[in-house]
């Protein structure tokens, strides 16, 4: 049975529809990659799951039970088990990396101060930032900030991790360190829904790939299918553009 089950969800930003009847499933321990052109609604799916975007139709179910986004207790319970990392501006600028990671467990989960701190330090070590614990976000590179953001998400012990184009705003040389970290989490068995443009990475790490365009799911399947031999025409055009991505002159 799926851990996360999204059924026919619709959502709009004002008058503009961004999600039209989107359905997808994520099983426990699975890594699902969400790909597609800009504006296809990929990020909106993640925002809708965590309750940052209001649904006008459809249902989201976590571990079998539907989420009632209008009910604060239900939303709280959801956010207790699902964590999200954004493309940028994740870290709280006014506190150190360590403080960023310990804030929510202390305030929201009300756990013991010292316990939380010990766990936070271990997490930061795991993502390779033990030396930068007391640094402020502005003193860290983009890649380092995103790794702290992931440590921060992990500190909440989520059962599902949502990653929203976490490398898209980074300078090219910083992308790999973040991808490595995500790979680590996948190997550990973290259930993840990843929106990304890094196709090589998705092909390696994802168990399932969902291709979206214009607010709809166009194709779903294993990476080899969707990326290498897509069925739908739209996915084919997308894949073709991706293949050309390593720039080569057009053959005359």
């Amino acid at each position, binding site marked *: 049975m799926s851990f996360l089950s999204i059924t026919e969800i619709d959502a709009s930003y004002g008058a503009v529809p961004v999600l039209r009847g989107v359905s997808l499933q994520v099983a426990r321990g699975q890594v699902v990659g969400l790909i597609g052109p800009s504006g296809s609604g990929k990020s909106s799916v993640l925002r809708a799951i965590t309750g940052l975007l209001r649904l006008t139709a459809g249902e989201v179910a976590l571990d079998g039970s539907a989420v009632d986004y209008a009910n604060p207790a239900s939303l709280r319970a959801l956010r207790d088990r699902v964590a999200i990392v954004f493309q940028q501006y*994740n870290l709280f600028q006014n506190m150190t990396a360590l403080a960023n990671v310990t804030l929510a467990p202390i305030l*929201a989960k009300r756990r013991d101060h010292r316990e939380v701190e010990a766990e936070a330090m271990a997490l930061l070590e795991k993502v390779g930032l033990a030396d930068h614990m007391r640094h402020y976000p502005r003193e860290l590179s983009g890649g380092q900030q995103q790794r702290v953001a992931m440590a921060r998400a992990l500190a909440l012990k989520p059962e599902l991790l949502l990653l929203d184009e976490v490398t898209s705003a980074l300078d090219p040389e910083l992308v790999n360190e973040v991808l490595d970290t995500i790979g680590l989490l996948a190997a550990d068995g973290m259930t993840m829904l990843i929106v990304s443009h890094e196709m090589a990475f998705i092909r390696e790490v994802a168990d399932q790939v969902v291709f979206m365009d214009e607010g709809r799911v166009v194709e779903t399947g294993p990476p080899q299918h969707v990326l290498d031999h897509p069925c739908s025409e739209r996915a084919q055009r997308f894949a073709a553009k991706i293949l050309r991505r390593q720039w080569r002159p057009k053959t005359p």
Partner: protein
Amino acid sequence: MLHSLLSELPRFFGPYNLLFLAQAIGVTIALTIVGCGIGYNFGFALALLRVQRIIDIPPLRWSAIGFVELVRRLPFLVLLFLVMFGFQAGGYTLTGMAVACITIILRAAAIASETVRAGLESVHPNQWDAAATMNLSRLDQLRHVVLPQAWRVILPPAMIQFIQLLKATSIASQISVIELTYAGKIMNQKGFSATLSYGTVLILYYVLCLAVERVVRRMEKRLVLPQHH
């Protein structure tokens, strides 16, 4: 003219007059500090009512907007008299000081609410969102994440507005509050030339405002230091 002015100086700056001027300056400063101290707090509350992420109660939000727009669009003099006659009609006779204080509080609240609101809205939405999805209460979001970052945007204009309100206290002279401008009028009535009286008062205001500016600049430097969680 210069000769007569110079001959006035020793009498003007006699001990009794200097004490009088000092007291008047005290009143000016007291009015500003009390008015802003209380007014800024109200302004902060008003701003919270207007930021939907924190409080989303339309009637309160519209009331806050109405109040702020009304107070901003009235001249200080008119506001002063409205407060005075309003309380009189209600059966309360307030001292000029009280009326002036209340007027400054109202004005400070209205102006501060705009400043605070702009400050809160200057913090990137992702900061709010990240805190919300981590199940931090709205109060915690405000206290630990948003407000510490918003201060940087709020304080500089707030300090400029403090100086503006200090200047506005001069209008309280019209309801006989013995602040600095009224003191100038009294000196003039005592026989000193208007040029000397009001000129001195003008320079005293300038010195006051500059002093406040200096304090502000020093505080700004302290605020740039990072805060520890």
